[in-house]
């Protein structure tokens, strides 16, 4: 492993260790996905043979949207803590005086925010998909197990998580309060959800090529956002901007 890769790994491990002991992050990463999985499954179980097809489809679409909320909200909460949390503990200066580069630090923190969000998103997506199969309502199965919808969920989850992470880190770098940073990050991540909800609610008829085209567009936006965040991570600015 190169020095840079090793430093990124060290940052990721440290971030995970901190999350494990920080209640607000732990709560968001455990409770939120449980809610987003439990609510649609509960609604699914409440369906009867007399439920109108339109209502069944609406439930399936809203469930698909909920699956995409996890990769948006979880990384927004985590990444909003990235810089301002360090600043609050006074750890930013000691870290920035080490050989770690700004980019290594950003990547380490981003991986630590994106990875759990994507894993959780895939997990609850898979759990919901299996629950739908088990329940066997054909109208729901046809919407949830629709290949373009599945492709969209798989491709969008990491890309949405990356967007939320960059927004969260950008706000965190400019913020001096963790809670304000987390609230603003969640708000800043929502426009991307509006875009993808066009799929979830069937406003755009989902096809695999369209899902891939949207994913490419998200990737381009994420790349631009990464560049903006990289520019904002300037040692001197991070140290002196909010100096007590």
């Amino acid at each position, binding site marked *: 492993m190169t020095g840079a890769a090793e*430093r990124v790994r060290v940052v990721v491990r440290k971030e995970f260790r901190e999350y494990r002991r920080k209640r607000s992050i732990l709560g968001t990463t455990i409770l939120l996905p449980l809610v987003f999985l439990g609510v649609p499954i509960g609604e699914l179980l409440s369906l009867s043979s007399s439920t109108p097809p339109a209502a069944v489809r609406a439930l399936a679409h809203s469930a698909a949207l909920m699956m995409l909320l996890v990769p948006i909200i979880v990384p927004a909460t985590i990444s909003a803590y990235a810089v301002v949390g360090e600043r609050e503990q006074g750890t930013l200066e000691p*870290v920035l005086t080490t050989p770690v580069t700004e980019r290594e630090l950003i990547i380490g923190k981003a991986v630590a925010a994106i990875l759990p969000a994507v894993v959780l998103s895939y997990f609850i997506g898979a759990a919901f998909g299996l629950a739908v199969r088990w329940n066997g309502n054909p109208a729901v199965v046809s919407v949830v197990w629709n290949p373009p919808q599945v492709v969209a969920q798989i491709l969008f989850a990491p890309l949405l998580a990356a967007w939320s992470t960059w927004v969260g880190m950008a706000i965190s770098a400019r913020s001096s309060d963790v809670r304000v940073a987390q609230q603003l990050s969640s708000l800043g991540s929502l426009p991307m959800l509006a875009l993808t909800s066009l799929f979830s609610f069937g406003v755009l008829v989902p096809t695999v090529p369209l899902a891939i085209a949207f994913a490419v567009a998200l990737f381009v936006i994420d790349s631009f956002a990464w560049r903006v965040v990289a520019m904002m991570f300037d040692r001197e600015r991070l*140290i002196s901007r909010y100096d007590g």
Partner: protein
Amino acid sequence: MFGFLGPNGAGKTTTVRTLGTLIAPSSGEAEVAGIPLTEANAAAIRRSITIMPEAPGLYLRLTVFENLEFFAGLYGVRDAKRRITAALEAVNLQARSGDLAGTLSKGLRQRVALARSLLSEPRVMFLDEPTSGLDPVAAREVHELLDSLRQRGVTVFLTTHRLDEAERLCDRVAILNRKLLTIGSPDQLRRQLFSTVIDVRTALPLDSPQLLFPAIDGVLDWSCDGPGCYLLTVSDSATVTPRIARALVSVGADITRLAEREKTLEDVYLQLVDNDGEGAK
């Protein structure tokens, strides 16, 4: 050990951050650990130094060991476990390695921060107010640690406004107040700023000190500081003090004290900073 002294707002922390490549210099040149201070050399400089900021800056939800392990990883320290153990031994904190940093007192956190500075075996350590806010016992422990570092040959750049600390620990000191006012060993600075004064005390007042003292070779001036108390300004303490003793004995005086009046680093500091303040006005 190099002491960097100055009042609040003098630029001590800014200087450390500049030398530590956290802030780009606006002008001038510097070398850190023999490496020219340029943007291209920033990473090389950071590998050669450690900076301990005024606040310990520990991850409060991580244990002491995890804190050190993280920084050892960032410095690419090989055999990290052994080095962490050695650093904890150096600050006498082996028993607390599994404790969360957030549960430690301020003094103990400062010791952990010091252990963190030792991990990478730096060529230069920058310590910014390492005893700020510590109680006297904790401050003394930090002083002992710094002293042991000096004995191990580590170059320490210590910023402080505790003059007793600088006087006790530093081989050389610089005094600044937004500009460098002076630099040298505490002794040199004392000599540079103040003439040597010998404090003479006799059991009974002398009959005619106005005749005795000016006659002694090397005595530049004298004054009476109370009954039987005299202050003599001399050119050189080592050669003139024996002459004063002989002169006093020759007139039958009972000498109760004959010693150089020590000027402290605090006197030097106050003189320079006050002069600088008056100059600025």
